[in-house]
């Protein structure tokens, strides 16, 4: 318990020292970098993952490939991939973004696909029966019903991207992981634990954000079902 208090005091001191909040390498800059990596890669990954997940889910073609891609992607060590990209292409943002997008697509793709495919065929039939076009079936029925799983996929992708963006500091990139890696190399434990705390807070905010989003946009009718199932 003393250890924990001590740790918290360290973090408090570190956060309180004003030099952390200004200029090059300060918290605002690192946070901005972190959010840029994460946000951009999540955006691209969402575009790719949602489009292909909806397509495969709606048509039912390529289901086997989706499962294979998901397992394969899960097996890739993200840390290794980022380091490899930097080794091969040098220290620049674009290659790392590509790596992060590659990591974020599979969970979005898989969950979108599962969500759309999981729509009761009777519901889909009923939608066609009342005269909806294929596009309307997708947009008005399948997507709203798949929304809980789509959001789950986005959340998992966001969590992985935020975590991997932290690791990206190791081969020399910015982001909040910078504090941890620099602290480790300088044996500055205050820096390590302070950086870690920031990363944890950011991850929790992402988690809370998705929970709030889910409450806001998922139909209450589906929420009840998701809870009991």
């Amino acid at each position, binding site marked *: 318990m003393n*250890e924990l208090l001590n*740790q918290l005091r360290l973090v408090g001191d570190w956060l309180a020292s004003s030099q952390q909040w200004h200029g090059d390498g300060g918290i605002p800059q690192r946070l901005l970098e972190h959010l840029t990596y994460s946000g951009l890669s999540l955006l691209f990954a969402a575009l790719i993952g949602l489009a292909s997940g909806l397509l495969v889910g709606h048509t039912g073609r390529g289901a086997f490939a989706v499962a294979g891609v998901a*397992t*394969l992607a*899960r*097996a*890739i*060590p*993200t*840390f*290794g*991939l980022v*380091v*490899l990209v*930097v*080794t*091969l292409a*040098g220290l620049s943002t674009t290659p790392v973004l590509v790596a992060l997008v590659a990591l974020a697509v599979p969970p979005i793709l898989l969950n979108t696909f599962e969500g759309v495919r999981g729509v009761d065929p009777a519901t889909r039939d009923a939608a066609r029966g009342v005269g909806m076009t294929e596009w309307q079936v997708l947009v008005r029925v399948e997507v709203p019903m798949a929304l809980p799983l789509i959001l789950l996929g986005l959340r998992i992708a966001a*969590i992985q991207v*935020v*975590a*991997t963006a*932290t*690791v990206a500091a*190791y*081969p020399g990139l910015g982001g909040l*992981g910078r504090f*941890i*890696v620099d602290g*480790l190399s300088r044996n500055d*434990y205050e820096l*390590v*634990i302070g*950086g*870690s*705390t920031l*990363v*944890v807070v950011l*991850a*929790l905010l*992402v*988690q809370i954000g998705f929970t709030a989003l889910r409450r806001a946009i998922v139909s209450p009718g589906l929420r009840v079902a998701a*809870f009991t*199932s």
Partner: protein
Amino acid sequence: MSDGEPLVRWQWIGDHAGELADYTGVHLRLGLLPVLFGLIISVPLGIVCHRRGWLYAPVLTVANILYAIPSLALFMIFVNYTGLTERTVMIPLTLYTLSVLVPAVVDGLASVPEPVRQAATALGFGPARRIVQVELPIAVPVVIAGVRVAAVSSLSLVAVGQLIGQGGLGYYITRGLQLDFPTPIVTAIALIMLLALTTDALLVLAQRLLTPWSRSKVTTS
């Protein structure tokens, strides 16, 4: 990376075969023991959550919050308590598995058809015996599906532990960066993926052996 350097120098792999095998063993231990520990925690926790439905939401929330914490940060937080040891890597990895394994156990138990549960009670199974002899065996396919996800993710996350000196094959990833030499990095990635996919395949096989009944589909109408 200097120009003309190939992605993989096979010679290097041959020279380091023995060392690679040692690190592979360490990697397996660091990646898979947490899954075992996670299962040991998740089965009773999942049973309790299944029995007391109200407990599931808070337990799952805690597991999801733990899962959201980036591994690097979590390792650093544990360094203060367990030092630069294997435990510092394995404890967070164990915690991560909970967000997959607890729902797997709960969903698995929920997959037991209600008539089966009723029949077991009516035939005179007590609660404990019913869980062990009827419900858990029926939950096995769903639980194993969760174990597959947990094991594959865990094996790929181990590498990050290298930043505190305990990363199994992750050693070659940092080594390659330091030497500006891609071969060890590519080798490590390939081996880690091989371990993950082999583990996945073995788990599929284990499921087939454990649950011969789940394969057989209705042959007569």
